Structure formats: C-alpha cells, structure tokens
C-alpha cells in the first residue's frame, strides 16, 4: 500500500464518496478510509425515498455501492481502516491508522456522526440484547412482540414504520408533543394502527437481566414515572459529530460541529470538511453528497495552487 497521497478522505459515507468521485476525476491520487462499512449510516435504513433522480424508493446499500464503484472507476482506493490520528508536519498531513501511517497534501474530513445514546442506566448493558440502533437489521427478532422507538425525527418514524411490519405494537416515545419528521412520514405513522405515540416522555432506565424487559418512562409534564414492558427499544434520538480528532486543529462549536465557510475550507491549510461533521446539516444524503462535491472542488483549487 502506497504511503503518499494527494488527498486522503476520512469517511466513506455519502459525503466522502461523492468527494472521492470528484478527486478521482481531477486525477488526484486519492485514498478513502472508512472505519465501519462503506456507505455510512444511511445503509442502516431500509429505503430512501427522497434522493433526487429516483422515482421509486431505492435501497440505500445499493445506492452507496454504486457510489463506491463510481469512485473506484476513477482510480480512487477505498480502504477499510480507521484513522486514529491526524497531524500537520513539514507542510504535509499525516494520518495514523492501525498499523500504518499515510501522508497527504490535503485532507478531506467527512467522518460523519455516530448514534447518540441516552446515557441512562441499563442502556449500554442491554445494547444488542433488546436495545438497538438499527430497526432494519434487528426487526425480525421482534416478530409479534412489543417494541419502543425513542425519538421524533425522520429516522425514528422510519424505524417505527419498518418495525410495524414485524412487531405486534410499536410505541414512539418522544420528549415533545409533536414530531419533527417530514409530514408525509407523520401521516403514515398516524394512520398505522400498530403505532402509538407516547408524548412528552423520557426514558430514565432500561430494565432487564439477560435481555430488555421494560423501560422506566417519565412524563415530563406530569412527572409521573411508569414502567412499560417492551422486548425491544430502538434509539433514534439524533447523532453526535465524529470530530474528536479535529480538536485543536480547527474551530468547533459547543456541540462539536466544525465551523467552516461556504467553500468548506477550514483555517487549517489543506483541510476540508463535508457532511455531518458540519452543524446545521439535516442528515440528508443529498446534502452530504452536495457538500462532498463542494469540498472536493475547494480541495482541487488548493492542490492546484501548490503547483
């Protein structure tokens, strides 16, 4: 494996892969590092209906496989390894992975975000034992059972709709009295007899010994605490940006998102960002791919200026 690259893209989701296509076509020697699976978080969903250009719902994994192949077609190398450290030294960027170190003239940081956890008792102990972050993956375990989905955004409602095909009953536990999700999803949820909303409520504890048995839920308006029996609980309460590695290199806001200009440059020379590491991103594949393209074009402008 080559050690020296023109561009290293950290993250192989929609933002990173879209950027890779443009870097490849600019004939830049480009490496993409992905720590989990190429395609990013969207592959945890069963369908995508709002990506422009497809009149029928598509499978996100298929879309992302095509995006990865498109990048490879232009000579981009995709490597399933994790960037562990990033520093600038001697006019170049250095990226540490598990058993190697790479150098690059420019970095395009598109490491995305991770599922937010509640951080309440029982959650981490029962993760994988009834507590899940992927309804598409785990719904078949809950055939005919009672499940809860925590959250009120697009992801939560999609998860609830998917689970309703398997589970006997789906409770959408949300801390407000209305959902943030797209109206079309809200309509589907309200018309679905298996799904009921539990408004103004927060989960205080996940209970169970070998597997999840119940949730301790508090009504935020009345203060009443109830124990509700569930076999499964799916977390869809948002995400946190994967920007720990950028601390000290670029400005981050109070939630850890990168502060950048519209060209997606940062104050660090040759460091560009795109996708969900930037605040205000509404977690749409189309936004992330668009950002990836913009960051790649800014990156190309920078690389040309070095020549």
């Amino acid at each position, binding site marked *: 494996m080559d050690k020296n690259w023109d561009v290293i893209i950290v993250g192989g989701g929609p933002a990173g892969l879209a950027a890779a296509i443009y870097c490849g076509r600019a004939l830049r020697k480009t490496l993409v590092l992905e720590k*989990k*699976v190429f395609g990013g978080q969207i592959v945890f969903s069963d369908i995508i209906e709002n990506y422009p250009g497809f009149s029928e719902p598509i499978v996100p*994994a298929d879309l992302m496989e095509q995006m990865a192949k498109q990048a490879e077609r232009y000579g981009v190398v995709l490597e*399933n390894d994790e960037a562990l450290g990033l520093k600038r030294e001697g006019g170049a960027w250095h990226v540490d992975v*598990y058993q190697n170190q790479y150098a690059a003239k420019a970095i395009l940081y598109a490491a995305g975000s991770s599922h937010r956890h509640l951080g309440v008792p029982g959650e981490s102990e029962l993760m994988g034992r009834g507590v899940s972050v992927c309804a598409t993956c785990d719904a078949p*375990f809950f055939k005919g059972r009672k499940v809860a989905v925590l959250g009120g955004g697009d992801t939560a409602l999609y998860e609830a709709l998917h689970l309703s095909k398997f589970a006997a009953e789906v409770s959408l536990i949300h801390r407000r009295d209305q959902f943030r999700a797209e109206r079309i999803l809200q309509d589907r949820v309200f018309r679905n007899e298996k799904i009921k909303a539990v408004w103004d409520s927060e989960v205080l504890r996940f209970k169970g010994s070998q597997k999840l048995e119940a949730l301790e839920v508090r009504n935020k308006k009345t203060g009443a605490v109830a124990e509700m029996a569930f076999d499964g609980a799916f977390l869809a309460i948002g995400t946190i940006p994967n920007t720990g590695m950028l601390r000290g290199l670029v400005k981050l806001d109070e939630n850890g998102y990168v502060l950048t200009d519209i060209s997606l440059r940062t104050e660090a020379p040759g460091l560009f960002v795109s996708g969900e590491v930037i605040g205000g991103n509404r977690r749409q594949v189309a936004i992330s791919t668009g950002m990836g393209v913009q960051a790649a074009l800014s990156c190309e402008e920078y690389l040309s200026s070095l020549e």
Partner: protein
Amino acid sequence: MSEIIAANDGDFESHIKDTPMVIVDFWAPTCMPCRLMEPGLERIAASHARQVKVLKVNVNENPKTSSRYFVRTLPTLLFIKNGQVKTQIVGAVNPVQIEKTLREVG
C-alpha cells in the same frame, strides 16, 4: 483459500467443537450493514485459514442458535475459543478491528 461456512441449528455444535478458534457472524438478508461487512470477513477467513474458522448464521433460519447466544442485534460477531464465548462485537466493524480482537482473544 478458506471461505466462510454457512452453519445452521443442526450442525453448529459440531463446527465449534472441532476448531480452537471460531468467529460466528450472525446476519440476515435484510441487514444491510451485514452485507457490506461480508467482504472484510471473507478476507479474514482467507488470511487466517489455518487458525480460524469463520461461520455465518442466518438468524431468520436458525432461531435456536441465535437465541442460545441472546443475539438481538445484527451484525453480531462471536469469538469462540475451544467452545467458550470469549467476547462479542455488536454492530458493523472493519476487518482490522476484527483482527485486533482475534489477537486479544487468541
């Protein structure tokens, strides 16, 4: 070159009995991260052919094995040494992390 072996409720026990180190990949056709993780597992199966057996268990068709290990999330990887579960990884990971876990367990 060794490949991933599809195990089922009937032959699972015999697979883990006769091998010192086994990785079990619990998956389902609907689990997209499972599908995207498979090339990495194939790589492990090929490069560690002599020391490690890689099994895959379709949870939809093999409920006995998945409930025996309390698998409720896909993908789940179990690391079984001499018949005993040493550790598990829940959720999609890259092959480098799988190798790291193998070294820790082995």
